């Protein structure tokens, strides 16, 4: 296959890539006046026909989401940009915001026009200080250049973008958690329906889109839906519910590889290709034992599943939860899955918002059980107990409000079913491998 030319990442290595001048010199904002003069419904149709699916994790068709807004609503309608990128292993949104903020802002302009919104809130996780400074400067530049504010470029379209900083909570990446947080409350996800498109931020119709999704919107408007559809994987003819996986995707590769990186490729590359061709192979000449396909919530691929296509449908075919954020984390063959799973469970237990009992208690108990295994006091029955707890929490069994819980259960299910030998060997050896750093963290 010919080398794929990056589109979303086309400018990130240019000098002064964050400035309006650099973006404009590369053709940015050249046709924004034309797009803002299109009928909003036509813009939505372009995005819908391109087959763009949300890049934040769930993969919901973006244009379709926009059509759920009530017709002829008097307004206001809100756009929330989800920049609370917190899924472990994921950092593509950070690079997009730090290196090419105007591509995102142009996407926000287009999306807001399509959904008839003149208020956009960009919910940025607090930890991204550099993104905040870059975006803040870029937004100021846009106001000064008449690209934001009232009557943008004489089209009669108004838009304000407010940068809103979070305060270090993973759950704010859940769209209704984000909305609650923006409203000044604890970020407890809402029961759906009503979905945000009907009743969202400040009880008004709201669309929540991920940063990478909106950057794709910019590229789709410039290059056309046919271009977008020429990249990626078409729908599976045997699955009428598969809308296909079109377009470029930013894959993050980290963990035990020689060259951790974020690389833009057509949807549908395999984990093996990513590791071997883009991340310099597994480090220290070792082999991969397991690979996280899209952030830890999605579970694990075993070493026999590395040829799985990382499109929206691929990971699900081998028992993972989905593609998630396409954050690939490689775990080498010298690492125990007990340690890896403990790390995942501790994360989820720390980040569970505490609203639904099965999640709050389930994540905490799974972490406690794994702690017991790690101090050499595990029992083989613990593995079945972990599976039972994991099987009873989440939207899939119907016991929680949001999907965090499914994402907490999945690594447990995958790790124990695919790597049971690792756990049995660990338990039988009665060894204890806590480092002093881990002891230190027991404080929390």
């Amino acid at each position, binding site marked *: 296959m010919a080398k794929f030319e990056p589109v979303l990442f086309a400018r990130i290595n240019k000098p002064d890539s964050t400035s309006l001048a650099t973006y404009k010199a590369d053709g940015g904002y050249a046709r924004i006046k034309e797009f803002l003069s299109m009928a909003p419904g036509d813009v939505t149709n372009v995005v819908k026909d391109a087959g763009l699916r949300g890049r934040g994790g769930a993969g919901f068709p973006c244009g379709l989401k926009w059509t759920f807004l009530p017709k002829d609503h008097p307004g206001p309608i809100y756009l929330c940009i989800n920049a609370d990128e917190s899924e472990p292993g994921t950092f593509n949104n950070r690079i997009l915001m730090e290196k090419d903020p105007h591509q995102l802002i142009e996407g926000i302009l287009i999306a807001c026009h399509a959904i008839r919104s003149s208020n956009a809130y960009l919910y940025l996780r607090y930890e991204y200080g550099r993104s905040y400074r870059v975006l803040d400067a870029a937004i100021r530049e846009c106001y000064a250049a008449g690209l934001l504010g009232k009557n943008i470029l004489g089209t009669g379209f108004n838009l304000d973008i407010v940068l809103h900083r979070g305060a270090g*909570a993973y759950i704010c990446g859940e769209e209704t958690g984000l909305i609650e947080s923006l409203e000044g409350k*604890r970020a407890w996800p809402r029961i759906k329906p009503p979905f945000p498109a009907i009743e969202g931020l400040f009880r008004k119709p709201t669309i929540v889109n991920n940063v990478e999704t909106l950057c794709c919107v910019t590229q789709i408007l410039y290059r056309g839906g046919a271009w977008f559809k020429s990249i990626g994987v078409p729908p599976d003819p045997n699955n009428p519910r598969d809308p296909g996986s079109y377009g470029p995707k930013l894959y993050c590769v980290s963990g035990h590889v020689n060259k951790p990186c974020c690389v833009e490729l057509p949807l549908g590359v395999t984990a093996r290709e990513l590791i071997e061709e883009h991340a310099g192979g597994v480090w220290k000449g070792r082999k991969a034992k397991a690979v996280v396909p899209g952030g*830890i919530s999605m579970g694990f691929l075993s070493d026999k599943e590395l040829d799985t296509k990382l499109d929206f449908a691929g990971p699900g075919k081998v028992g993972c939860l989905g593609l998630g954020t396409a954050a690939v984390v490689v775990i080498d063959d010298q690492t125990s899955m007990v340690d*890896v799973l403990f790390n995942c469970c501790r994360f989820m237990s720390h980040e569970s918002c505490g609203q639904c009992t099965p999640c709050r208690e389930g994540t905490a108990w799974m972490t406690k059980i794994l702690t017991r295994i790690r101090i050499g006091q595990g029992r083989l029955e613990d593995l079945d107990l972990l599976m039972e707890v994991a099987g009873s929490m989440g939207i899939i069994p119907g016991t929680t409000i949001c999907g965090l819980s499914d994402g907490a259960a999945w690594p447990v299910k995958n790790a124990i079913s695919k790597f049971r030998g690792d756990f049995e060997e660990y338990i039988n050896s009665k060894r204890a491998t806590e480092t002093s750093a881990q002891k230190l963290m027991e404080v929390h």
Partner: protein
Amino acid sequence: MSVLSEELRERIRQEFPKYPNKRAVTLPALHIVHDARRAVSTEAIVGIAELLELHPAEVHDTMSFYNFFKDEKHALGNHRIWVCRSISCMLRGGEEVLEKVCDKFHVHPGQTSADGKVTLEFAECLGACEGAPCILVDDECHMDMNAELVSALIEKL
């Protein structure tokens, strides 16, 4: 008389036009006070609540949900160091980095050094996994850390 200075109150008021109601200014207001005072005291919560026309309990409810904000008993030191402990960093030595910082300042995660210079905390994924292990010092991220590099970085604080 509010415990918050007029300057802080004015900065909070400047956030009002960005949102359709005052409650939405809770997080921005907490950030403004927290940045300036290194903590949000009970009196400051009352001061924020007055400005936002909320009950102090509502402000406290929101604040306490986010571990980010410290009350007066846990005020931050001059610098805040966050060491990432999530998966990509853990796989590449994040825990050794954390140990090093703990040793250096004789603190556990969550504590402030005796001289008030540094507050150490662990962080969940900082989103810089291509440079794991990474740490955040105040709001600047430092990547590809190891025990030596982190010692050198700390010396400069």
